[in-house]
């Protein structure tokens, strides 16, 4: 009899939906059916049990091909690379659980490494702005139950977080929002006519890279000042109309995304978004939330802040003197300045997602990829160690985009007895200790 597992968490985007129903085969090895997930979530579960997965570590040979090796050998090699490197970089963690992040933290500390996560190229700017300016935020549950005005600023959930609008923001009927989307106003601010812009009541097609000016215009209007006839490509009347709706909200939330963090100004764009949220609180209740990209990319910020005092870009090369200084200790900057001499890519794909010059710099040194799948990073590494897919083959704690922890479930057995991230890092740690003693 096929078995139906309910309340399953989806290991893809930051919406971290935990209402997925997965039907698995009799023997608990194959995913047969997935319910409630979006197109991407669906693919994640089905792909995990597709035949042809890599189940043993692979080592690059002098002729450029890969040779399968045992876990034992892979662990020994990884430990030696980390012990021998002066300044290894351990980066990724977009797709793993908090248990894996914590185990990797122990390895990084032992190795005197730089420990960094995908926030470094994603919402890192948000951290900087939040340190400077605070974070008047809330949970997605509060949005669902209270919010009647939603602003998607430089974010496109229709594509990046496909169920965000239906589960949390626009469509659900909450405790005080019984009319669902009929009772809500949606404002979208984006330089493109995105699919999110299409479902919004108001779309302000801001000139790319000019969000800061537009925020400034909103703040000026909220403070009772006058603004020019056109700001950042948006006519004054449109700004006044949107600001009017925002002031009259009972409860509003600004969900902002990469358009702010990746454009000129970076953290300053987020900083002024937070200031605008604070201004709005003079009139009514407003909150702001970063649209975190991956299902547990809020995790490393939480886990490592607890372990080391910093959320990302953590330099432990001075051993007992840990520091964080983005621009200096951030992965892409370290790569471009050629400051690291070994690279561990874990639960991400730097090969596909870093600008190619950064990839070329990192590739000058030993490159280890720890990932369940074949990806660009695995195909250029010296050593690829496959691991279990979190949320499918192993459970664990994940932090949703609103920093709410959720227990994810395992739905099938790991293919071919492969290790979890946590088991793998613990074994690398043990091996590093042994090598230490031998030395």
């Amino acid at each position: 009899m096929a078995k139906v597992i309910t309340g399953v968490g989806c290991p893809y985007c930051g919406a971290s939906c935990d209402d997925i129903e997965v039907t698995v085969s009799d023997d608990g090895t194959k995913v047969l059916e997935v319910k409630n997930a979006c197109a991407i979530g669906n693919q994640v579960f089905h792909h995990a049990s597709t035949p042809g997965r890599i189940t043993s570590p692979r080592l690059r040979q002098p002729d450029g091909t890969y040779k399968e090796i045992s876990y034992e050998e892979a662990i020994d090699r990884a430990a030696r690379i980390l012990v021998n490197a002066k300044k290894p970089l351990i980066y990724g963690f977009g797709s793993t659980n908090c248990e894996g992040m914590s185990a990797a933290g122990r390895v990084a500390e032992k190795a005197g490494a730089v420990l960094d996560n995908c926030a470094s190229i994603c919402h890192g700017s948000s951290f900087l702005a939040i340190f400077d300016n605070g974070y008047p935020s809330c949970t997605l549950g509060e949005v669902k139950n209270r919010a009647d005005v939603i602003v998607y600023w430089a974010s496109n959930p229709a594509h990046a977080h496909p169920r965000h609008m239906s589960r949390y923001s626009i469509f659900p009927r909450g405790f005080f929002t019984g009319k669902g989307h009929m009772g809500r106003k949606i404002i979208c601010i984006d330089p493109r006519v995105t699919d999110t812009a299409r479902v919004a009541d108001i779309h302000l097609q801001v000139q790319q890279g000019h969000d800061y000016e537009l925020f400034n215009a909103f703040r000026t209007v909220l403070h009772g000042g006058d603004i020019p006839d056109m700001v950042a490509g948006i006519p004054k009347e449109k700004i006044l109309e949107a600001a009017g709706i925002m002031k009259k909200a009972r409860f509003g939330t600004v969900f902002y995304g990469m358009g702010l963090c990746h454009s000129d100004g970076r953290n300053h764009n987020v900083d002024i978004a937070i200031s605008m949220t604070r201004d709005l609180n003079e009139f009514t209740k407003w909150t702001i939330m970063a649209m975190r990209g991956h299902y547990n990319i809020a995790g490393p910020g939480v886990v490592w802040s607890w372990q080391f005092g910093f959320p990302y870009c953590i330099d432990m090369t001075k051993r007992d003197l840990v520091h964080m200084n983005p621009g200096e200790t951030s992965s892409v900057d370290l790569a471009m300045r050629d400051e690291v001499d070994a690279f561990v890519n874990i639960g991400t794909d730097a090969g596909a997602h870093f600008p190619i010059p950064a990839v070329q710099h990192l590739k000058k040194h030993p490159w280890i990829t720890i990932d369940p799948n074949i990806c660009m990073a695995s195909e250029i590494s010296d050593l690829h160690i496959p691991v279990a897919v979190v949320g499918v083959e192993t459970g664990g704690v994940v932090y949703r985009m609103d920093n709410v922890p959720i227990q994810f479930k395992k739905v099938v057995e790991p293919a071919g007895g492969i290790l979890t991230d946590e088991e793998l890092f613990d074994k690398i740690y043990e091996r590093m200790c042994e090598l230490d003693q031998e030395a």
Partner: protein
Amino acid sequence: MAKINLNMITQRAIEEGVAMEKGKTTPDYFEACSIIEMNAEDIKKLGINPNANVRVISESGEVIVKAVVGRQTCYPGLCHIRQGVWANQVVPPRTQSTGEPQYSGFPVTVEPAEYERIKGALELVQGACGLWKGDE
């Protein structure tokens, strides 16, 4: 030959997300990510038809992709390549001291390249690292 200067951004797309989970070496990923979306006016300025290949050149590299108008339209002067391997051939690694590369808002030159071939993901990334051995 017509050349135009555009402002480029790169963001996620659901097609890219689905294809990426299927695998970055699949035809689905190639289809989803090796395209540049731009305004119909800009395609006209290039003197090409939609779906023709173009060369995109930035301060840090270049890449051949297919020019389309796309569903999520850009205003004239703005263009978008979905996040991933093709976009990252041209994304400048400068970070304004934040760690975050210039994924959104950098100048590119686009020119027709109708007879040039779009390279696959593996060819681009392995090729950049001296590992590409040709199609297996």
